[in-house]
């Protein structure tokens, strides 16, 4: 059973629908006990880093999430991925879950770019692979370099260890599209909103053993 953590941040309906369409058993989990009882978790997220962390604390889910992440497969999406890092710089410097060492910083815009590049970065962008072995490969099955995913963000994750990045995309500069460290995965894009390739990515995660 896959648990989608519903902590008040993120489009859980579309995620549930996606997993249903893919034929995977999934349910929304809202308590620490429920989180500890599922085989894998997905941490969705929209909005800002500090607000996502606040919500996890408010709902008393912080410890259960960390425990699960450290022992079972976990996938963070968008802000859900960003809070896996050590700190975020959106609005105020905030501590994250710190399971992937690194920071979350604002996408940097070069004012001399023409046409003018805008924030938030909203839309489809092609991804590329970095050479990574093992489980990282299982996450990319059926996806090829250049496949496009849907992004909606102004901040990006910068892991301390370059090996923690398995897919990249570009917006003025290269940034991490997918991070992976042990059993922990994070996608900056929204796989539940990226059409067929997004569904494939979610399927890969659900199939990890």
């Amino acid at each position: 059973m896959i648990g989608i953590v519903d902590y008040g941040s993120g489009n859980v309906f579309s995620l549930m629908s996606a997993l249903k369409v893919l034929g995977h058993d999934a349910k929304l989990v809202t308590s620490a006990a429920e989180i500890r009882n599922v085989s894998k978790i997905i941490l969705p997220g929209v909005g800002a880093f500090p607000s996502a962390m606040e919500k996890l604390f408010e709902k008393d889910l912080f410890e259960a999430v960390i425990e699960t992440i450290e022992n079972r497969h976990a996938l963070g999406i968008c802000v859900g991925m960003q809070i896996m890092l050590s700190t975020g710089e959106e609005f105020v410097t905030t501590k994250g879950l710190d399971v992937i060492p690194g920071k979350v910083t604002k996408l940097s815009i070069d004012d001399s770019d023409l046409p003018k590049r805008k924030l938030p970065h909203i839309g489809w962008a092609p991804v590329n692979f970095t050479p990574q072995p093992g489980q990282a490969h299982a996450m990319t099955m059926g996806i090829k370099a250049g496949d496009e995913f849907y992004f909606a963000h102004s901040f990006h994750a910068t892991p301390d260890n370059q090996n923690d990045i398995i897919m990249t995309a570009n917006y003025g500069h290269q940034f991490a599209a997918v991070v992976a460290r042990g059993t922990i995965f994070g996608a900056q894009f929204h796989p539940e909103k990226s059409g067929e390739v997004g569904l494939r990515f979610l399927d890969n995660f659900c199939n990890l053993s």
Partner: protein
Amino acid sequence: MTSAANMMTPVRLIPRLDIKGPNLIKGIQLEGLRIIGDPSKYAQKYYQDGADELIYYDSVASLYERNNLFDIVEKTAAHIFVPLTVGGGIRSVDDVQKMLSVGADKISINTAAIKNKKLITDIAERFGSQCCVIEIQAKKASFGHWEAFIDNGREHSGFDAIKWAEEATSLGAGEVLVTSIDQEGTGKNYDRELLETMASRIDVPIIASGGAGSKEDIVKTAMINGIDACSFARIIHYDKATVPEIRQACIGAGVNVRRL
């Protein structure tokens, strides 16, 4: 194309579905309606045809004082895996929460935001700016000026459309959906001057809406610097062109769009 242009976000192609009750409809300049068919069937077709996003608009919400699209959103969001924006009659943070809980990703607001600017900030703070689209229904007022209209293009607001768009984005709206009231439903092309003026003043992504009658209209509008997405209705509802044909026309003209 320079390498910088290559790295720009592809222009998004977004079918717009105006919905009245159980029906997909199409209007001429926001008056006079024609029933096209079942909105969920059309939405599913456009998704399968490769639409980058979809917009649902409740065109009678202002008459009923609320948005009635929950059922259709829930039904289609279960099978459509690209972003869905819902607008028409969204009046409160609660309305937004309800819509997001049945599968919408973004909401677009107009009338309620003009009447209560704080709503924009409230929505952006609770759900994020990228969730909050401000729709500007613009009607030509004088040379180089447009007025912002409310209640689905029926009522004057007295506000300058461009200035209002600037204010709305400073309050937290993450995208601007620019609809030309003069061109909407005519199929006589977008209001290019409106779009160019908006693009020169607004720093967030802009979605062009109102007037697309041919693939060329969409291609030329997609080429305007600062226009990030093109929304269209009659051209696909009336089968004048399909989403894949529009995409091909953009690619052929050198416009950066999703390749699929």
